[in-house]
């Protein structure tokens, strides 16, 4: 399974590559931890219905997931928050992660309503993106009484941890995922394992072609 991503945005660089195709080579504990991510997403338990809607729109923006199939990021984050699986620290000027999520999602929804007369999930994708860019651009200035950069850090940390733990995301970036007990035998520049797939467009340096939304 591959996620929808146009070649212009980095899609189809590793044709035919599938990390899960190699899962017979993974140890059982790892199979258990990883393959469950491909199953039915956990039910939403932490977010209220409104929070879920705002969070879903936020994650779709942060991770550019605008059509199915999607990595179920909102369910994965909700599950962590329901189980209080935090990173083991919080900034002194933010509440603990669960409460920080509730407050920041409400604040984002409020921004949309004040600026556009509709909530965050209801405004256009472009409007959502510019609302987020406004938070990002505040840097260390305050946003609804919170340091904007720390809110941004909270959102992006949870989003990246969920999305890049999913085998479909690994396929898109050429990463084979678990590597025990097989390991690697071909170390060094341009030396691939038989199950790795060479980049079909090695000249697509994103730093050189920066642009587009985001």
């Amino acid at each position, binding site marked *: 399974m591959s996620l929808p991503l146009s070649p212009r945005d980095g899609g189809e660089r590793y044709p035919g590559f599938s990390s899960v195709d190699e899962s017979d080579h993974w140890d059982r*504990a790892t199979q258990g931890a990883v393959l469950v991510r491909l199953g039915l997403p956990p039910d939403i338990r932490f977010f209220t219905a409104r929070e879920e809607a705002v969070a879903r729109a936020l994650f779709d923006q942060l991770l550019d997931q605008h059509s199915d199939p999607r990595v179920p990021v909102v369910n994965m984050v909700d599950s962590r928050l329901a189980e209080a699986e935090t990173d*083991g620290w919080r900034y002194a000027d933010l509440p603990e992660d669960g409460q920080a999520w509730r407050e920041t999602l409400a604040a984002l929804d409020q921004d949309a309503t004040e600026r556009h007369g509709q909530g965050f999930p209801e405004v256009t994708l472009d409007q959502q993106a510019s609302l987020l860019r406004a938070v990002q651009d505040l840097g260390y200035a305050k946003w609804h009484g919170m340091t904007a950069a720390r809110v941004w850090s909270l959102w992006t940390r949870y989003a990246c941890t969920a999305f890049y*733990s999913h085998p479909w995301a690994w396929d898109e970036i050429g990463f084979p995922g678990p590597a025990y007990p097989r390991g690697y035998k071909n*170390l060094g520049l341009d030396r691939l394992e038989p199950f790795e797939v060479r980049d079909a467009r090695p000249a697509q340096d994103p730093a050189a072609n920066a642009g587009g939304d*985001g």
Partner: protein
Amino acid sequence: MSAVRERNSSAWLLPPRPGVDHGLRKDMRRFEDQDEVDIAIVGCGAGGSTMLQRLARAGWTAVGFDAGPFWDPERDWVSDEAGSHHLYWTEPRVIDGTDPVPLGSNNSGRGVGGSMVHFAGYTPRFHPSDFHTFTADGVGADWPIGYSDLRSFYEDIEEELPVAGEAWPWGDPHKYTYRPHPVSGNGEIFLRGAFASGITAKVGPVAIANGRFGNRPHCIYRGFCLQGCKVNAKASPLITHIPDALAHGAEVRADSMVTRIGFDERTGKATGVHYVRAGVERFQRARIVAVAGYSIETPRLLLNSANARFPEGMCNDFDQVGRYLMVQGAPQTAGRFAAEVRMYKAPPPEVSTEQFYETDPSKPYKRGFSIQTVSPLPITWAEHVMAQGHWGAELRRYMSDYPHWACLGALCEFLPLAENRVSLSEEKDRHGLPVAKFSYSQCENDQQLLKAAQSVMERILTAAGAEETMTVKRYAHLVGGARMAADEHHGVVDSSCRSFAIPNLYITDGSVLPTQGSANPALTIMALAARTAAILVKGD
């Protein structure tokens, strides 16, 4: 090799396959709470496990407590980034200051083996200059001991882990028993860029045997060192010191959170440790107590052990507990190459340079930095990319380019400052104990080092042919917080790691370090603990 086995037979006690010896654990000696054991050690990481092994071997009755589990790597660890969350200390903590330092996965372990379970594996020694930075440069602090006091303990621990690497030209030049490992694309880039820019770089030193060591197998180069080594190739006390400790009659009491140190006001001595296991509060009697909970939990435990004699916290008569806590500035600079680097292959720790470690009189700043390969896996790499401000389509575009990036990390010697400290928060944990609040702010010297390190990393990557570079600012390691000093007005413990305030209370972890150099601290923490154990055994 037989000398190592005679000193520490852990590698020969493990089974000749992945996993751990359940026989040793099943048959482990178990003490009663009312037994007065010779020593109760709080924390089974680098410092605590080394103490436990050394003292058990000397015939002491010893119990090592750990708040986390007694890991079974085959069952409990996975070859996966997100699935390794349980390896970190994730109980609540508050971070504050001008430059707050994230904790958790970055620098905090739990469970038997401590944060060495998920450390990268670099095990450099400190340089002789690290022990007198104040006299030499007017910054930091002088240790009450010198490099020569630690040298033989460095040599012992290097053999026991064991360490592989090239002959080391920096600090006190020395060699390693095991040859350097082959390097991956990331290491090749570093070596090539260093050579082209006139910088000396070396392979190692890493605590991963190159070849079989006892019953521990060879590394399989799978790159998941930071997720716990299921192979048993990378060292952690779980496999390097705990098996030998158990074979000599030590007990490891896992899943047991020590909440307070017992104290007798009449004798002025520690009496044991209060701990919670399975929700039940208990008390273990002990003749000596050693605290090895690392730089956040050790000060927190001392502060939470306040009593009538020590109203401001145990050993805190002079407001030293929790202070001078240090992190290293650890910016990471990545470079983009036309070739496929695939930095996730092979252990992240491969190549390093200590050419910039010492004070350079031609620079405006004191002390220096080291540079090492680091190889972020996708989640950590995504945070690196997001830190550049990229998100949405731009993030996905950058991430699809992952195989083309190489990444170096610096360790900058941030200076010990009194206001960088642990104190107690209003917030309580599930045991009802105040959680640690860690406040951190950089000084100007720190910021100058960050800039200098970044420019050297950019120079190396560019010389290796990088088309673009990008840098993320972050921190690594924790040391200090209950430092060693010449007297009780300047620190918490003396040169033998014995607390000034209580004659039978020791601190044997990274919190005793007065300065940190730009070396990864694990080896030094173990060497210091081995030295304290030797002093205790000699004096017994």
